[in-house]
């Protein structure tokens, strides 16, 4: 356990080395470094897993603390990891599938000029993903949570010269941030509620021990806020819109980030919080409803897509919906089990589609494919294994996990969820085999140049395909309900979910009803495949009735087809309702700032200047005018009296004589 810090640190090391000097290294070295650190992290993960298994089941929860990360007053968070069955399983998936995808990438991305940058981002992603699942408190989880979002942003926009790619990256980040907004408010509410109880902490252990003391109304809000975060990260309605666009990234990225690992973080988070959600089953119902609605909604869009990766993208959204349906109804083990099998088969199918795209010289439109089986047998066979798994065909892995979700929903009385899940399963089988038939069977519809270059991918790409195909085929073993106490997966995960599931697996009723249910879901899956084959598989087409042809369906359901094909116009609606109003509001703010607030400032300045000018005038004309008029008055007066002082002696003598005469006359008369 003491070496657990190596698990995330190794990929970080790889990312640092490749990020700093990767551009100077030969491609071989870059690829080798990236893959080696992943292999090493995988080995350490296996050791950790093994060591955990050696402990008694009740003690399989080890916290390894490294240092105090953020501390302020009573608030303190450690940089610490929690190793328990859930995180141990997750690190195995992340490093294992991650390693395979790194190897695959050395082949797929070999000709890219920014190969080193790609490997750096990919390693960095794995680092953050491991932090997310290993963190022993919400804040370390959030560190990983945002970090994987960052890498997702960087990798979706990896070919940044394409505007659509950098647009998609930005969209992914911003939509995820909307989710994070909820997540972080949920954390604050959780922390302060616990703090009021004298147990303020964000450590899982303390939180889960005290959580039942929080007022259920507050818990409901916390649960919903955290789920907003999960819905953003795991692309649930209404925040799923970024995931289909995320297909702009290189295909191995879609496999690793947008299928196998990052997008399942929301499911992991809800499962991790089972102690919280088991206290508020009504929020669980909301989660399950959102999940199953997303599953159906995305599946309908998947029915009509022609882009090989878009089909897989909608299918991913749909399968994530399944996982939320599972954790929502309290079937945490089933949800995490499906998370694992999905990582195998969806990772496989994305890599397979990458192999196809590689062979087709970048072509992604399935209408220009066809007949590829004869050119690339390994890709074709492995892809079909993946399709069988996701379609829920026994004994492939997807069958066990999907069936467990449906069974648990049924058993717990969520019949609507069960029914919608079953319908979605049929649709999934349909569109997946539509994809298989369009891509690998029939006539090749590509142009001659492309046809000429068709080839199987190099072994660096096919070997990961084969390994993932094996895992997709047999990975369900741990979920086969053979054991007394339920499945191996449950047995292993149970200590983590003891809060949420205790009442469920004590009885272990795996009777005839469950077998009948299995039969029903297999039948539904087979129906989907059969319907797809009538439409798209050449040898079967002749049996199809006239109304069951692609053109006939498209023409008789024109409006619906257009609605689905345009993805319900959701992006347009969001643009109209959210994005454009915000842009307009920004412009309005700008004119308000310049026209009102700054106008006041400038007005104040102008008013001051006006006052100054007026004062100036006042000073000149009134104040100084008064002073000046005084002097003018004096001058004027003096100018009058001045006339008396002529300076001539005769004048003075004359005045004198006249004066004397007047006095004399006055005296003589008086």
């Amino acid at each position, binding site marked *: 356990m003491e070496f657990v810090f190596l698990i995330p640190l190794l990929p970080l090391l790889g990312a640092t080395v490749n990020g700093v000097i990767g551009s100077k290294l030969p491609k071989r070295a870059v690829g080798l470094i990236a893959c080696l650190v992943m292999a090493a992290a995988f080995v350490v993960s296996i050791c950790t897993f093994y060591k955990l298994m050696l402990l008694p089941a009740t003690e399989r929860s080890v916290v390894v603390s490294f240092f105090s990360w953020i501390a302020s007053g009573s608030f303190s968070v450690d940089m610490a990891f929690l190793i328990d069955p859930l995180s141990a399983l997750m690190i195995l998936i992340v490093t294992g599938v991650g390693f395979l995808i790194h190897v695959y990438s050395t082949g797929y991305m070999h000709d890219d000029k920014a190969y080193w940058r790609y490997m750096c981002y990919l390693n960095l992603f794995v680092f953050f993903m491991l932090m997310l699942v290993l963190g022993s408190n919400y804040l370390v989880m959030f560190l990983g949570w945002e970090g994987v979002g960052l890498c997702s942003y960087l990798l979706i926009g990896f070919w940044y*010269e394409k505007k659509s790619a950098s647009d998609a990256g*930005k969209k992914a980040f911003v939509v995820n941030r909307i989710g994070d907004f909820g997540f972080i408010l949920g954390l604050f509410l959780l922390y302060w509620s616990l703090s009021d109880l004298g147990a303020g902490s964000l450590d899982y252990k303390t939180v889960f021990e005290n959580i039942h003391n929080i007022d259920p109304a507050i818990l409901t809000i916390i649960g919903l806020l955290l789920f907003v975060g999960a819905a953003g990260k795991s692309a649930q309605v209404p925040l799923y819109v970024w995931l289909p666009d995320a297909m702009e990234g290189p295909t191995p990225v879609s496999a690793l980030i947008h299928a196998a690992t990052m997008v399942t973080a929301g499911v992991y988070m809800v499962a991790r919080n089972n102690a919280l959600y088991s206290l508020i089953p009504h929020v669980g119902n909301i989660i399950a409803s959102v999940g199953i609605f997303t599953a159906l909604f995305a599946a309908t869009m998947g029915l009509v897509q022609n882009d090989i990766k878009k089909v897989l993208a909608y299918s991913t959204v749909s399968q994530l919906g399944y996982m939320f349906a599972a954790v929502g109804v309290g079937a945490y083990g089933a949800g995490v089990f499906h998370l694992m099998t999905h990582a195998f088969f969806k990772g496989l199918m994305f890599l397979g589609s990458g192999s196809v795209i590689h062979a087709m010289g970048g072509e992604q439109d399935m209408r220009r494919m066809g007949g590829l089986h004869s050119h690339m047998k390994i890709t074709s066979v492995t892809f079909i294994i993946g399709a069988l798994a996701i379609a829920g065909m026994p004994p492939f892995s997807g069958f066990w996990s999907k069936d467990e979700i449906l069974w648990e929903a049924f058993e717990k009385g969520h019949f609507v969820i069960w029914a919608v899940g079953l319908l979605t399963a049929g649709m999934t089988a349909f569109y997946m085999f539509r994809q298989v038939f369009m891509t690998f069977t029939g006539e090749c519809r590509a142009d001659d140049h492309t046809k000429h270059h068709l080839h199987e991918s190099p072994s660096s790409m096919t070997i990961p395909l084969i390994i993932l195909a094996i895992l997709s085929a047999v990975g369900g073993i741990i979920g086969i309900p053979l054991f007394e106490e339920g499945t191996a997966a449950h047995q292993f995960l149970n200590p983590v979910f003891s809060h949420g599931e205790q009442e469920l697996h004590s009885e272990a009723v795996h009777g005839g009803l469950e077998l009948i249910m299995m039969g029903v879901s297999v039948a539904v899956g087979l129906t989907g495949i059969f319907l797809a084959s009538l439409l798209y598989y050449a040898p079967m087409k002749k049996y199809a009735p006239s109304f069951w042809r692609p053109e006939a369906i498209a023409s008789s359901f024109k409006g619906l087809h257009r609605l689905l094909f345009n993805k319900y116009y959701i992006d347009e609606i969001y643009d109209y309702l959210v994005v454009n109003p915000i842009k307009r509001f*920004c412009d309005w*703010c700008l004119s308000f700032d310049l026209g009102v607030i700054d106008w006041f400032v400038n007005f104040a300045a102008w008013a001051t200047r006006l006052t100054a000018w007026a004062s100036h005038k006042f000073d000149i004309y009134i104040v100084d005018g008064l002073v000046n008029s005084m002097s003018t008055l004096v001058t004027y007066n003096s100018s009058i009296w001045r006339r008396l002082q002529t300076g001539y002696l005769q004048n003075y003598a004359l005045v004198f004589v006249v004066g004397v005469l007047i006095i004399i006359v006055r005296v003589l008369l008086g």
Partner: protein
Amino acid sequence: MIENALGIPILSILILIPLLGAGALFFFPSGQKEAIRSTAFGVALFNFVISLILLFYFDSSTYKMQFVEKAAWIPGIGVEYFLGMDGISLLLVLLTTFTSAIAILASWSAIDERVKEYMIHLMILEAGMIGVFVALDMILFFVFWEIGLIPMFFLIGVWGGPRKLYANIKFFLYTLFGSVFMLVGILALYYAHGSATGEYTFNLLKLYEVAYPYNLQWWVFLTFFLGFAIKVPVFPFHTWLPDAHVEAPTAGSVILAAVLLKMGTYGFVRFNLPLLADASRAFTPFILVLAVIGIVYGAFLAMAQKDIKKLVAYSSVSHLGAVMAGLFALNQQGIDGGVLQMINHGVSTGGLFLVIGMIYERRHTRLISDFGGIARVMPVYSALVLIIVFSSIGLPGTNGFVGEILILMGLFKTSVTAAVFAATGVILGAAYMLWMTQRVIFGKITRRENLVLKDINAREVLVLLPIIGLILWIGIYPKHFLSLSAASTARIAEIVERNAPKVERAPHAAEAARHAEPHETVHAEAHGGTH
């Protein structure tokens, strides 16, 4: 009177070194530009090293003022030359000396005219800024506050852009306008303290000791608010900032954003909160509203900008709104977050202005639409820009996250509504920053001029590396920074927090005050050196 472990007036030395540097530069012949630059950088670097020495002698376990120096200045009216620092001051002094050195390095090739005068102004500015953060006499504080204005006035006025005259006068007069009110407030406190205790003094620690009547607090708070809010700037006093930033030379913008704005928030945390605790509580709703409007409104404005520098300027309004919200959460998480975010904003936004300066030097335009696709020709530059951008939007693992989370956490406790609105800044911040990044760095190169852009050189990398280092350091191990100021922030939180016991220890002067007005509460604040 010098009280510290070093036995030397280290704070005065910190202020004197740049002044002496400025004096020395005065004797350089104007033509020797390289020598002038090197000397200036050497002086700034030396001062930074000196400020680092403080770290070794600083006792972070106490909120009390350390490295105290005191000398009579104008004894007749109780004005002293009184310096000292606590953890908050220390962080800001370090930020100042760090930013000053970086700013000089960043001006190396951008400023080629009147280099000597430019560097002299930068040095005087540094002295003024340090003075603001260590002055403990209110008149001294006011003097430093005003001193800082003058070199900045010249930096924008002489080396600024085309509308520098307008921007400069706006910046200068607006700040001056606010500071006049502040001076009135200072005098009001002076007389209130004098009439309560019989001792007329501007000594801040003594002013702390008296609990002022609520009415007086209210009015003084208002005057201080005007002085500091304009400087921060708090909405709606922010319009001088974009203009000043756009016209200022790169180093001016860096210092303006990194340090000068912090003088405002520092004022709030040093004076308003502990001196006027009752009024602070009363004003909290008002300030939170303005702060939250600033966060959201600044972000929307940033989104609407066409000029990169204006965008970052408005983002400062948003970020400083967050700092204010944190400080006025009136609890330790919020104040810790606010103080740390002052540093973070200095590092990140300072960094953003640096990278904008670098691209401006190459293209002589800052319009977003003039760029696009420069990641292809300037990969190193683009990578570093991305890191700074992510720090600015508060991605975990970078400094911005730690500050933001503490602010929001503290704010959530005080007002859920304010926290919810403030947290939308998290979304909007990502939106405008990434949109800008996308339009500037990503995409195809659409202009021929951009095809021949040269990637950043060694000196420019050297300028940015410390910034990147700090971003990651604070992000991964914030404790080194938080623990420096923790004692002070805890103390301030204790004073302003609701229901906190207000009577602590009462020295004689305050004792007398309490006897004179028994219904009033007393905050005791001892002063002295390290122990």
